[in-house]
């Protein structure tokens, strides 16, 4: 486990859904196509994919943040 957490800026997000394709273990989509982030810190093996999701998001809506709650 890492101390990283995926955060979506809901104002910026336009439901492209690339993040959920890259990270189905951590991100699912609601019925309108907007991402829902799984609870808890991001598993270590997903960090590289998460960084790619940050880069690939067309709306720059994803950030990786330190999880303050550990």
């Amino acid at each position, binding site marked *: 486990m890492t101390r990283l957490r995926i*955060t979506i*800026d*809901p*104002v*910026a*997000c*336009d*439901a492209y859904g690339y993040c959920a394709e890259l990270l189905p273990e951590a991100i699912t989509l*609601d*019925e*309108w*196509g*907007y991402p*829902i982030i799984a609870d808890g810190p991001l598993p270590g093996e997903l960090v590289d994919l998460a960084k790619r999701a940050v880069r690939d998001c067309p709306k720059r809506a994803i*950030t990786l*943040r330190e999880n303050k709650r550990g």
Partner: protein
Amino acid sequence: MTRSANPTRPQGDVHRLLGHPTDLKGHIDAHGPLHVSLGRDRSWQQGLMTSLEASGLTGRGGGAFPTSIKATLACSGGTGGTVVVNAMEGEPCSDKDKLLLIRAPHLVLDGAQYLAALCRADRIVICIPIGRDSVAAAVSHALDERTRQRYTRVQEVVVRPPDRFIAGEESALTNWIESGRSLPVFRPDKGTPLRIGRRAALVHNAETLAHVALIARHGPGFFRSRGTSEEPGTCLVTISGDVHHPGVVEVDHGTPLSDIAVLSKPVGLVQALLVGGYGGAWVGPGQFATPYASIPLRTIGASAGVGIIAVLGDTSCGLAETARIARYLADQSAGQCGPCHFGLPAIADDLARLVRGHGGRDTLTRLHRRLQEVNGRGACRHPDGAVSLVRSALTVFAPDLAAHGRGEPCHHWHKVTTLRFPRPIRI
């Protein structure tokens, strides 16, 4: 105690806010002149901050956040900032801030002056929505009095943002002041102080500021002499709905909900109380004895919100009223965040189907899933308020829900609503 604190109790402490003199002369007679220390006066500032902390004052705009912590955060944002007086009062069932600014404008403005001096802000912006001209006129009159008598220390100006439910959300308000866009801003870290441009912004509800003015002058002990030890002070509550005498009352924190509701003389039997406004929660008869204060209300899944109790009589349909509120909240979404923009109308549709007796178990299951999914997924808490309200309705009106679900809707659902909406709502 601050050095300017006057330990005497002002007369007529029953209605410390609403009973306060309206004109500046009466205000000064009751409290003496405004003692604020501008510039860098650490001991004065420390004294006021200690008083605010000791008073236990929490925000009266819905968040119930400790005022002293909010002030500390704003002070960390540097000098030359803005104190924003939030009198937007977007909840259709609320009248308390309008009434307070008409009855006791100097109390609210003085609270803003104290906080401006505390955080070394250099302007005060009073936000009154377009259309509320009687409130704006009362405040303008008060500002004229203050200017004429050279009473004011920091500049005070009135601005008129649009009259929408969401416009008073604090980041929407600072955003509007800065850019003219009345839209909430996504802030991943709520601990960072709000800003207008590069300067700190300290946004406070009008009622909170009135309490600040009294605490600064009479000390924290005065404030704490009313209310409960955990949640001291008085508060303003607007009572509406199925009552003979709707209006604003000033009560002690911790007064049982039922004791507040009877002040407005409910019509017939009371089926439920809507507590905290349209982003609040329904409370059933089994919990009418709950003290009106954030902590006890939280334990029953409600919140004090912005000081609202709406009474639902036994000839109204709680589900239909909730469907109307859900539709209204959906219409009032800023439309920026997908889950709120699409989710709230979908939730309102599900409720409308259930109310009409067209929705079965599948509709209810889908509604529960949507409530779960929409909660907490907006930039602001608008969708969360809607979710809280609908969830409480599904619990409090569970027997009605079962009857409507069997295709046997009650006879009251098409009755004209007794709740307040800016325009008629079709469900």
